[in-house]
């Protein structure tokens, strides 16, 4: 069973990183990764992607948005109190 391809291996990466692969698939993937440096590098890049995206897409709430929210809710609450 050492016929697995890079393509097969890439398809297993999400479940592999989640620790959800069964013993057989995990062994097969690890065997492929051991003998395939492109896939080994690919795994590293796949694994690094979410953290890079979190960093790139992090946003602080602008102060004026917070101020507008407060004004909006105050006027709505005042309407409701009438």
């Amino acid at each position, binding site marked *: 069973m050492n016929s697995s391809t890079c393509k097969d291996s890439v398809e297993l990466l999400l479940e592999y990183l989640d620790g959800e692969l069964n013993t057989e698939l995990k062994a097969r993937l690890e065997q492929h990764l051991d003998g395939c440096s*492109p896939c080994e590098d690919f795994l590293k890049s*796949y694994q690094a*992607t*979410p953290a*890079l995206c979190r*960093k790139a897409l*992090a946003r602080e*709430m602008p102060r004026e948005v917070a101020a507008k929210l407060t004004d909006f809710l105050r006027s709505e609450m005042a309407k409701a109190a009438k």
Partner: protein
Amino acid sequence: MSLDAESRKIQGSAPLIPSEDTELLTRAQAGDVAAFEGLVERHRSRVFGLAQRMLNSADDAAEVLQESFLSAYRNLPNFRGDAQFGSWVYRIAANHALMRLRHRKVVNQVEGPLDGPQFNERGSLVEEVSDFRDAEGEAMDKELREAIEAAAARLGAEYREVFVLKDLEGLSYEEIAELTGSTVPAIKSRLHRARLSLRTAIDHFYQERS
């Protein structure tokens, strides 16, 4: 590897003590406006972050923020103390953001299959993979950030929602399934496609740079 722990850290807000919420909530339910504002203050940045990343627009996120807290306010009498206020309002916001995301046409949205790795006819990887560096604590390269923003903006709604909820917000597959109405296997499959597409964009960025 725990993405969840990592993403909590990145959200950067001080840990919230739920018992303080409970006290504020009791007062807010009794009509104390200042107490409700206290709750808003404690949870608004997390809600804004979710909506901003889901919708990729500060204006839309600001509207979701208003809608969500207004909806929470109107539903205060129905809220039962056995749930956390924070997760309740977060769920309201996630629903509002999802509805908006699904009802709008994403500009530059990818039609057809997303980008992914290239294989030859024998199923072997044909491209060289760049070395992804992510220096902890270091500010992100501006061009890399823009490349990631552009790639994330091209994701279709069904990819974007699972990627944001899992990889950026750190929700569990089960929580995402409940919010989106999708099955866990479908969520995993779309998340994998989204990651492959974003990975490709980052890879291209590094290839062009070197």
